[in-house]
């Protein structure tokens, strides 16, 4: 597979078109927080809402968002929206940490598909340093929003 095809895995192209979580959803009184992330170099932006359950150890109920950006940033937000529901905030943080570590590895870390699931498809992004920020856009928004929602 060429580096380009590794960057644009079919799974990413699919998610960039059929986007999970697109369209902000009402939290219906549950703990929630919004976060806005903006990439000034390309103008990509996302407004993302994390809604938690009201259990004693809260889990992610839903991630919803609206955004404008490249296929990588939109697909990454979509993948996370699909994966996150049901995770505790600690599990979500751990997933974000693993994803970030993979992206920053310049291609040196082989993704653990058991842990990363569909997000492992973004391993090819790590070889394109300029695109790492694109993949992280929605994930940073979720990381920040989850922290705030859990307060």
């Amino acid at each position, binding site marked *: 597979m*060429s580096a*380009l095809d590794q960057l*644009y895995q079919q799974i990413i*192209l699919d998610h960039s078109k059929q986007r999970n979580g697109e369209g902000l959803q009402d939290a219906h009184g549950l703990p929630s927080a919004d976060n806005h992330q903006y990439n000034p170099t*390309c*103008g*990509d932006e996302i407004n993302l809402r994390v809604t938690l359950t009201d259990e004693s150890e809260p889990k992610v109920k839903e991630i919803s968002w609206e955004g404008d950006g*490249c296929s990588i940033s939109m697909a990454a937000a979509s993948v996370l929206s699909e994966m996150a529901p049901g995770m505790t905030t600690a599990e979500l943080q751990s997933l974000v940490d693993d994803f970030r570590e993979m992206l920053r590895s310049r291609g040196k870390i082989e993704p653990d598909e058991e842990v990363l699931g569909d997000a492992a498809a973004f391993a090819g992004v790590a070889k394109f340093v300029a695109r790492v920020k694109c993949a992280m856009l929605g994930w940073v928004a979720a990381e920040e929003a989850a922290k705030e929602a859990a307060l």
Partner: protein
Amino acid sequence: MSNKYSIPANTELTNEAVKALRADFPILNQQVNDHDLVYLDSGATSHNPLQVLDAEREYYLYNNSAVHRGAHTLAVEATDAFEDARATVASFIGARENELVWTSNATEALNLIAYSFGNASQGLGGEAARQFALTEGDEIVTTELEHHANIIPWQILAQRTGATLKHIPLREDGTIDYEAAEKVVTERTKILAFTHVSNVLGAITDVDFMVKLARKVGAFAVLDACQSVPHMPVDVKALDVDFAAFSAHKMLAPTGMGALYGKNELLEAMPAFLTGGSMITKVTMTEAQWMPAPIKFEAGTQRISQAVAWAEAVRYLQHIGMENVHAWESKLGARLAEGVSSVEGVRLLGPAAGTERAGMAAIHVDGVHPHDVGQLLDTQGIAVRVGHHCAQPLHRALGITASTRASAYIYNTTDDVDRFIEALGGVRAYFGL
């Protein structure tokens, strides 16, 4: 110093001539991602020919010294080289040497005007500088087409002085709405700042119209000439602008240097901007007297080797002839505009194909983000600019956040344009559209 050129003086540029002069640009003769490089990003930065690189190196090899100080031979040689360079670059745009201020880039040149006017507004520069003072009720007018460098300094100046910043809107095709301009510019307008050539759309402004508008109300006309001076004959006296800003690295010279043209009587009357060493005559612990323009605006050690290199770049362009440069780039621009217009799902931004434009074209690819377009082109060795090109308000007016821009220069052939168009034809298909 290498004065050998690859093509004879005043050669009409053709694919043959361009292929010959590309010998002066080794950076272009390389493979990128297993393809011959197609560099279509000269609107962002251009490449230095060997002659320019040699000039900078030879300055350091044989003449390097501090300028405007010291009595030794090298210091004199360095000063001569520095001031000769100023005369060369100034005459290239039809200016006198005391009308060209070296700056670190065109952005600083525009900031220089804004800060100097701001200083005048606070009383610096005395009676002579009163003409530059702004106050509440005064207006600064720019256009929606501008690069951020021709917007933000005016925002800050407006905030400092209480003046109002207004802008001339654009027509549907992204060009300046001249009818609206007549209404936006009023008796209260003190500054009219506008671009000569849009750095995104390649649209060429009717400078004559804008200058007449400024004159009618007694406003200063400030021209962003970054995308015109490198690409077409520009005579600031014929255009009759009060100020013009342009940049070295967009015209075959190194980064780190720009210039401000200002009518000498204005530069002389304006208060200083950056202050410190070199720009003074007499200093006490409480006050200082300034050198005449342009040195008044050149505080601290200057970019001497870059100035020398820039002058060599000017000689290189003069050797080809700016009429020839402009004619060739107009052809490339027309070919770009026609080519992209023929690709399904691609919208040409700015003036339609077949109308006058500079050698560049910005596009919107339906359903594919510019970053993805740029990435795909890069894998085929094609370098273009993607993003907002430091013109967010323009993109907002066009209803998009970013675009893809191909910009040509003297070293591009029609093959380069065709490779770009061909690759563009495959973009939407790759993304499943």
